[in-house]
């Protein structure tokens, strides 16, 4: 546990010192466009405040996801390049778990800050019910966790660019397929069956509407959190599987 904690702390420090936050800063700037378009430069309240602030939150979340994905994709690769970490008494499992925790803490903190800023705007513009936004935040947490759970162990094999592409494809391809099937654009039985299976087992397949409409005045039931929890569980299983595959393999140290 001590070694995992040392790795977590190092990972937090590394995460805060990299340029991986550039996508987040870009999205933070872009997030002001829906705000300015929606509320005007004088920032006057209007009846679309829930939609505008939800968009703002979604922009921030996307920025944090991308940053989290870059952080995850570069973390193990960086160690492979320096190779020194693999000469120290820390197992690959401890290394990956420490990096997962460290990166998730930083990304989670970023999401929380983004949520609190959005919440402050929501209060300022007169919105009063925020139960749905809690589900939106949980959805954002779960998705970012999925991205990190995949990208960190993939770093044992792949370069950052391939890790990012693979992670993105594994999570987004089934999600896109689901969108196409649900819109009726794909009707082939075999593909529809595959889609049904992927929705059950592939990581990152959860309802993303709560994040897109986080500050809408909607009711939430406890059961709505099931998808969030199930996705997190799948992400953990995939993470463990990938780490166990990397445990006894010679690493390519100088990529």
């Amino acid at each position, binding site marked *: 546990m*001590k*070694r995992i*904690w*040392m790795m977590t702390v*190092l990972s937090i*420090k590394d995460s805060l*010192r990299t340029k991986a936050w550039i996508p987040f800063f870009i999205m933070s700037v872009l997030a002001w466009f829906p705000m300015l378009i929606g509320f005007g430069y004088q920032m006057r309240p209007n009846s679309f405040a829930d939609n505008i602030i939800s968009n703002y939150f979604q922009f921030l979340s996307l920025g944090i996801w991308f940053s989290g994905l870059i952080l995850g994709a570069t973390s193990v690769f960086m*160690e492979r390049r*320096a*190779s*020194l*970490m*693999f*000469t*120290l*008494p*820390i*197992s690959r499992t401890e290394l990956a778990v420490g990096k997962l925790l460290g990166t998730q803490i930083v990304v989670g903190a970023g999401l929380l800050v983004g949520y609190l800023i959005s919440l402050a705007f929501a209060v300022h513009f007169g919105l009063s019910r925020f139960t749905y936004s809690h589900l939106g935040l949980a959805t954002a947490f779960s998705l970012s966790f999925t991205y990190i759970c995949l990208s960190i162990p993939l770093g044992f094999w792949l370069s950052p660019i391939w890790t990012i592409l693979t992670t993105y494809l594994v999570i987004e391809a089934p999600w896109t397929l689901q969108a196409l099937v649900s819109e009726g654009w794909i009707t082939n039985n075999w593909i529809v069956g595959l889609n049904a299976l992927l929705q059950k087992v592939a990581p990152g397949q959860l309802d993303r509407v709560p994040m897109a409409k986080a500050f809408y005045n909607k009711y939430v039931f406890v059961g709505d959190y099931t998808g969030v929890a199930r996705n997190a569980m799948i992400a953990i299983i995939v993470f463990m599987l990938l780490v166990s595959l990397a445990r*006894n393999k*010679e*690493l390519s*140290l100088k990529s």
Partner: protein
Amino acid sequence: MSSVLEYVGVSRSFKGVPALRDVSFSVGEGEVVGLIGRNGAGKTTLINIAIGLLYPGSGDVRVFGLSPTGNPVAVKARIGYVSEEGHLRGGRTIRELIAFHRGLFDVWDDKVEREILDRFGLSVNARISRLSKGQRRQVGLLCAVCHRPDLLLLDEPASGLDPAARREFLEAAILLLNREGTTILFSSHQMTDVERLGGRIVLLDDGKVKLDRELDRVREEMFVAIVPRSSVPDAGTLEKIPGCLRVRSVRDEWHVVVEGADEDVHQRLKSSIGHNGIPCVRMPLEEIFIELVGGTRNKEIA
């Protein structure tokens, strides 16, 4: 003397190119072994296999009787490692780096830490990114020895350093390690480093062990005879001399490396060549190294 590190028939290739061929030798407890050889001889590969960074293609490696890939944490907890690249991971400043390493090991010797910091005049607040190459190696040494390792692996630890920094580094290593009786395997192609650290040498050439001797024995019992081609036209005759390690063609001469006691070597040369008067001298280690692994100068010129 029990064996701390043991290579048994280790071979390893990279993309079909052999880097190590059937390497076997062991390092006993408290021994200091210098791994020497030309660039690309397989020194770093051997050290990387010992620490589990690389896996042997065939053969077996045992460190403290364990497989470094099967029991990585247990093995690495008892090893100190300083790399040629001088990478340092674990913090932005020396203080953070020490804290990180201290957290990974069960034992940490504050006295040794203080001693190294004082000896090299390092400040714990110094930023790693602003350290010179020599200082990075010094910090690397600090991280490698403060947990009192039973085996220290130094992969070309002083390469790229200026002579003064080189001497400072090696003297510190000797001082710290001789005192503790730590087993050391270090690689180098600098014979002065090897002579300074002492002990035993294992000479690698083209991935194979060419020589495995005590350093004192190399100094005392290695001779180079310079035989004119006019007196012995065929190298085969010289290769048959008992104790002959290599015959090298240099212009119109043969350079013959022969191992044995002083009187004995002269006698063997005389009986093989048939006459006296062949210059046969002890050479500095560097010259012996060149004679053993150097190319044929005639061919190079051609």
